[in-house]
């Protein structure tokens, strides 16, 4: 049986999740040139926010009601933490050397992990996440899990909403202006503090949607789930061109598909059977990243990295 369609779908789903999280990296970087390494943990707290809502709902609530509430819970928690982090951890350091906020971000990431580990009930090992009932859907030779349906719908919708917001609204245009030149934007009457806060909040909201998708897809969440996923999402953002919101999504999908195809097919190349297993997939993903950056240092859709340096 030809497994290529199935593997492409697997990669697309994985990549969509990377993309949802990557948006947060890319938006914050585009506006304040900060790599927010705590973003993976904001994603993680979103998942726990959704779980909290689920546990608070009476047992047996149908997913049609529960899911929207869980998304709201995830978004509220993630946004609150991201905005708090921006206000109290990053804003005081805005004019400090670049390394200071970076180290702060790493510290914040560890602090958030440990806080969830220590204070969230039974979060010391993995917690189960509610699942959408109903069997998998078969389209030809491709199987799509019920939990993945959410991801299939959420990723493009989120992307469309984001594009509309950035391109059409006043705040979105303020964002573009701040990204181009914060000082001039300020002189033109843009409240840059507010814009930066909105960038953090939006990134966190998309990460929260990604976190709900993660929970539905894998059926479990834990306090370390943001570490690797955050790293992958950051890679996706760089691959797509950091600072570019479409690049984040495309970078995510390219990365996800590359990992999946590497797992599936590298082993079939004669002499490469040792390097084809899933544990090597990350390596191939990074080979791809290096190749892309070699020929397009700005990333797939990147723009104006040069005038930043």
């Amino acid at each position, binding site marked *: *049986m030809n*497994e290529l369609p*199935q*593997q492409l779908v*697997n*990669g697309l*789903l*994985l990549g969509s999740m990377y993309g949802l999280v990557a948006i947060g990296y890319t938006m914050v970087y585009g506006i304040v040139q900060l790599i927010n390494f705590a973003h993976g943990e904001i994603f993680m707290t979103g998942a726990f926010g959704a779980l909290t809502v689920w546990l608070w709902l009476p047992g047996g609530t149908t997913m049609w009601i529960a899911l929207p509430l869980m998304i709201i819970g995830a978004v509220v928690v993630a946004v609150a933490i991201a905005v708090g982090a921006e206000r109290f951890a990053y804003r005081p350091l805005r004019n400090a050397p670049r390394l200071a906020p970076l180290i702060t971000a790493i510290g914040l990431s560890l602090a958030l992990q440990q806080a969830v*580990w220590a204070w969230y009930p039974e979060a*010391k*090992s*993995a917690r*189960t996440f509610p*699942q959408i009932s109903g069997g*998998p859907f078969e389209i030809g030779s491709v*199987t799509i*899990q019920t939990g993945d349906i959410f991801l299939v719908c959420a990723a493009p919708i989120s992307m469309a909403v984001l594009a509309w917001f950035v391109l059409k609204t006043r705040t979105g245009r303020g964002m573009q202006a701040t990204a181009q030149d914060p000082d001039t934007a300020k002189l033109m009457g843009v409240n840059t503090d507010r814009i930066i806060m909105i960038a953090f909040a939006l990134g966190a909201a998309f990460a929260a949607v990604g976190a709900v998708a993660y929970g539905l*897809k*894998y*059926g*479990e969440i*834990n306090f*370390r*789930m943001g*570490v*690797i996923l955050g790293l992958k999402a950051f890679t996706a953002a760089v691959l797509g061109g950091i600072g570019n919101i479409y690049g984040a999504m495309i970078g995510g999908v390219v990365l996800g598909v590359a*990992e*999946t*195809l590497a*797992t*599936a097919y590298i082993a079939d190349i004669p002499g490469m059977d040792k390097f084809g*297993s*899933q*544990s*090597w*997939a*990350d390596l191939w993903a990074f080979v791809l990243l290096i190749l892309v950056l070699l020929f397009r240092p700005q990333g797939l859709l990147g723009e104006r990295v040069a005038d930043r340096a």
Partner: protein
Amino acid sequence: MRQRSLIAITAALAAGALTLTACGSRDSGDKGSDSDNGGGTVVIGVDAPLTGDLSAMGLGIKNSADLAVRNANKQKLVKGVTFKIESLDDQAQPSAGQQNASKFVSEQDVLGVVGPLNSSVAESMQKVFDDAKLVQVSPANTGPALTQGPDWQNKKVRPYKAYFRTATTDAIQGPFAAQYVFNTAKKKKVFVIDDKKTYGSGLAATFTSEFKKLGGKVVGTEHINPDAKDFSAVATKVKNSGAEVVYYGGEYPQAGPLSKQIKAAGAKIPLVGGDGIKDDTFMKLAGSEATGDLATSVGAPVEDLPSAKQFVADYKAAGYKEEYSAYGGYAYDSAWAIIEAVKKVVDANGGKLPSDARAKVTEAMQGVAFDGVTGKVSFDEYGDATNKQLTVYAVKNGAWVPVKSGTYTG
């Protein structure tokens, strides 16, 4: 402004310094009372992952060792000696394990260490303990090389005299699983997956060689990344390989999602693993479709042995928050073995601890024999448990149910 931030920094530094001194003084307080080693307190170190993915097993080890110490103190097993537990977290990381080992070595009243859980962590600790002649008894390491040297298949050489274990090795567990899968479950086509760690790859290798010897066919192999959660690409490969069963060498944090995703991909075949997946968390992660998945584990089922009933009752009565998990009984026996060895040394020295207590305890460990929770506990010339019993468990109604016990005879 500048002044204010200076004040803030000073305050932060002062607070930090205070916390550090607080830790320091507590440490020295622990040791201060009995530094002469003439009886008094003997500390048994426990090293296990107490946080992170594998903490369910690690906390079970810690609690069970603690229970052994409590019982020994209650029975006044060694006159004039009070046992105490000091547990350190290795986070399943070899680097953290080695730091913990150095810490135990530096504390004079530590006379034995129970742990670790992971074979890879044990590798980083063995030399540290051996150099200090501090005895280490692992309840859970199954990597054959730990006791029989890297070339154990051809020439067995014991690398470290201070290392013992109450768990059975993969050299027995892998083939035992292969015989069950081939002969009893009648599955002839297997897909082998491992996580590339010392434990997982060793188990997968011993399983594979026995399965091939029996006439079975390996239709695919795959190595996964212990950090990963998305196994959909692997699951699709498994489905298309036509395998009748999946053997996984690794631990439950990955085995659970792996089993779930393989079944979701449409391959309704059982996943078989070693003792590393035999934890209740596996069911939580694998979901309802895990029914029929198999795990081998060392020893007879803890709940069935008469000697174990007492342990289970005591454990419940002691009111620990966490389950004793897969290695609880072995951890109890490991701690008890150290206590027995200390008793021997104290008895031989006229009721007092000798000055070279560590070396003596290590020496005495070789001859320790007693009826423990998991059956008869004693060690062979390599430091391996002489008890070579294994049990196959199957998932049924969301619990591990023993289906077959036996010994592997080669």
